[in-house]
């Protein structure tokens, strides 16, 4: 009984903590917006663009999560995404966007099966197989794109004819009043309104699908016996095997799901973001997805937050003609670091306080000394953030215990 109560209390305090974090993040953002005078920071356009940029990397990250939860490191996500963009373009321009989605899933899954054959059945090193997958993904997509699109009107060797659009929703009754509140420039209130307005504006149905997939993943992997078995395969395959779990089958299911999700991420790029398949349009997003997943501690919620942050930075960079938004981000980063330093004082970790405080002070002085930031800062921000998290917060990260270890039934390895 007491155990139950303490668990319930644990959940409660976690929720309070999350609420406090969200509110203080919002307050910080609002404060930064007012101090740096960059109105675009929480505008509807920025948030809407951020969502659009976050979805493909989020889906790739979710794909990586499925695979790694079953103990298979998947750096072939990028190749599977590329296959997805081709599948979406090939079926999409001929039979409409819904068939395009299906095509993306099928092509992603096909790539994943080849990857699974190498890593699960043959037990080849997963990093090597992933590298080969990335080469193969590029090769197949370019070869078939050349065959499929070069002789059709509106297409070319590297580009498909345009794909019909999928429905997107705007709820003006909610979004427009919120924009009006945003324009009033009130501390916190305007920013909350601005952010919310973005969620009711030109929301692609694929975005809604992606959000659903995140919730479903979280439910299936953490609330069902299927999910428990799948995760047990990633934590301790030998123990799982001894309890009658078919390790190979679960790994295949997980890796195939990962290909489907990466393919969907590709489909979003081809169908929703640009309306065509174009060579090179994935542009390393599979790798950002991988970064997102690590940043999010191998959890769906964390991955979604990571994708949101990376998408947001990307959106600011794209809309930022003079570099002022990115400059504001430096201030935000500085304030977060200083806030963490203050929290660390309470825990008497003075070395951490010193490090964080110093980094914060450096960022503040950077903010004060510049008027605009080069675009490249936004380009490297997701990767730098992931690297810093890995380097300085890795005690808090907990990847699956058997992640990356090939499993052979009956062999000690």
């Amino acid at each position, binding site marked *: 009984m007491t155990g139950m109560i303490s668990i319930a209390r644990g959940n409660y305090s976690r929720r309070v903590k999350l609420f406090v974090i969200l509110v203080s993040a919002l307050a910080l953002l609002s404060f930064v917006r007012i101090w740096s005078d960059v109105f675009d920071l929480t505008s509807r356009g920025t948030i809407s663009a951020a969502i659009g940029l976050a979805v493909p990397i989020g889906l790739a990250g979710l794909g990586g999560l499925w695979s790694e939860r079953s103990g298979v490191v998947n750096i072939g996500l990028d190749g599977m995404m590329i296959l997805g963009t081709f599948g979406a373009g090939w079926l999409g321009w001929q039979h409409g966007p819904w068939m395009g989605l299906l095509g993306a899933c099928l092509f992603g899954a096909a790539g994943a099966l080849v990857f699974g054959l*190498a890593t699960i059945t043959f037990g080849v*090193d997963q990093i090597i197989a992933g590298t*080969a*997958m*990335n080469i193969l993904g590029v090769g197949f997509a370019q070869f078939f794109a050349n065959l499929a699109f070069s002789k059709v009107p509106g297409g070319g060797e590297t580009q498909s004819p345009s794909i019909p659009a999928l429905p997107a929703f705007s709820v003006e009754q909610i979004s427009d009043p919120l924009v009006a509140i945003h324009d009033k420039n009130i501390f916190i209130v305007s920013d909350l309104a601005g952010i919310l307005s973005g969620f009711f504006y030109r929301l692609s149905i694929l975005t809604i699908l992606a959000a659903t997939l995140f919730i479903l993943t979280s439910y299936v992997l953490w609330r069902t016996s299927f999910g428990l078995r799948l995760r047990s395969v990633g934590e301790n395959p030998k123990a799982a095997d001894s309890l009658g779990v078919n390790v190979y089958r679960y790994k295949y299911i997980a890796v195939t799901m990962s290909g489907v999700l990466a393919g969907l991420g590709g489909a979003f790029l081809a169908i929703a973001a640009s309306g065509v398949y174009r060579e090179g349009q994935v542009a390393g997003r599979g790798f950002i997805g991988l970064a997102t997943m690590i940043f999010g501690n191998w959890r769906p919620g964390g991955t979604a937050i990571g994708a949101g942050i990376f998408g947001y930075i990307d959106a600011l960079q794209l809309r930022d003609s003079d570099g002022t938004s990115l400059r504001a981000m430096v201030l935000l980063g500085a304030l977060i670091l200083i806030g963490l330093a203050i929290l660390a004082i309470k825990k008497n970790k003075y070395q951490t306080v010193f490090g964080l405080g110093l980094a914060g002070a450096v960022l503040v002085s950077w903010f004060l000394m510049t008027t605009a930031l080069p675009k490249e800062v936004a*380009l490297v921000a997701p990767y730098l953030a992931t690297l810093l998290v*890995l*380097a300085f917060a*890795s005690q808090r990260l907990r990847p699956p215990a058997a992640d990356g270890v090939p499993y052979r039934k009956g062999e000690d390895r």
Partner: protein
Amino acid sequence: MKSKRILDALLAPMVAIIFSVVLASVILMLFGANPIETFSKMINYAATPRSISLILNSATTYYFSAVAVAIGFKMNLFNIGVNGQYRLATAVGALVAGALTFPGYISIPIVIFVSMLVGSLWAGIAAWLKVYRGVSEVISTIMLNFIAIGLIAYLLAPSMLGVQTAENVVGTPVIPESGRFPGFSIPGSQVPVYGMLFLAALLGFAYWFILNRTRFGFDLRSVGQSPSAAVASGVNVKRMTMYSMLLSGAVAGLVGLPLLLGAQYSFTVNFPGSYGFTGIAIALLGRNHPVGIAFGALLWAFLDVSSQILDLVGVPREIIVIMQGVIVLSVVIAYEITRRVKVRRQQDAVGKATAVAQ
């Protein structure tokens, strides 16, 4: 005995190459092309003096990249970051080369040294993160690859150190005549062969010598084969990790130089960016052996160059990329299978020996 060992080593790559040829033939037939005709056209095209020069040039670049990867592989380190290391190294090297006006025998060694240093330092970040913060070098080098791209774009912006080149792209100032690495030409070909080909051969020998004839090489291999045994015999694994990653990065710093100092003379934002992945594939194919890598590099370069003819026969030349991907994947599968067969054979032999002893 020795010839049997070589035969064993050759089996897996041969199977992989044959499998990829078969698969490519099936794809070709599906799209109505005659595979035998296509392949013989490719071989005929590759046999011309011009193609041979091109193949030697590409192979030189690939060789540097594959050796860089192989140094890591020998210690079970995955240097996925050769791409970032050589791009940053070549960009900085190009900036230095563009600024120097010394005669070649002074400026070229300086440029080579600077590039190796930059590549080494960039790999050193991943090494430091691995040794002192426990960060997997696979993830950190992937991240560093992208960070390098951003850093280069920043360095090459016209407001910083770059200039607008003739084709309206941003790049480094053109390297003066004196700073270029002299090449040589083979009869009948207009395309000069990179002089750095000889440097690649020298590197291959040095790699073999250090690995097999020095204490350092012995320590390196022992850590790769059994870290616990290495520790027991007094090898400092952390230090070896650091050294081999730095060494790998230094060799990676050479990857872009043949193209930079032998043909392009300027580093632009369009400089090829994925020789590192090619290097991984070739190091696997050549089993990290200097001679094996040389054959792998030549095969890869042959496929690249001979694919140029395919567009004229009406086959998309990307089929070569598929073939390359299939070769990598099937060669590692073949290695894994032969390894397992070998283990089983050993177990059988031990079983029989102990049975007789009883």
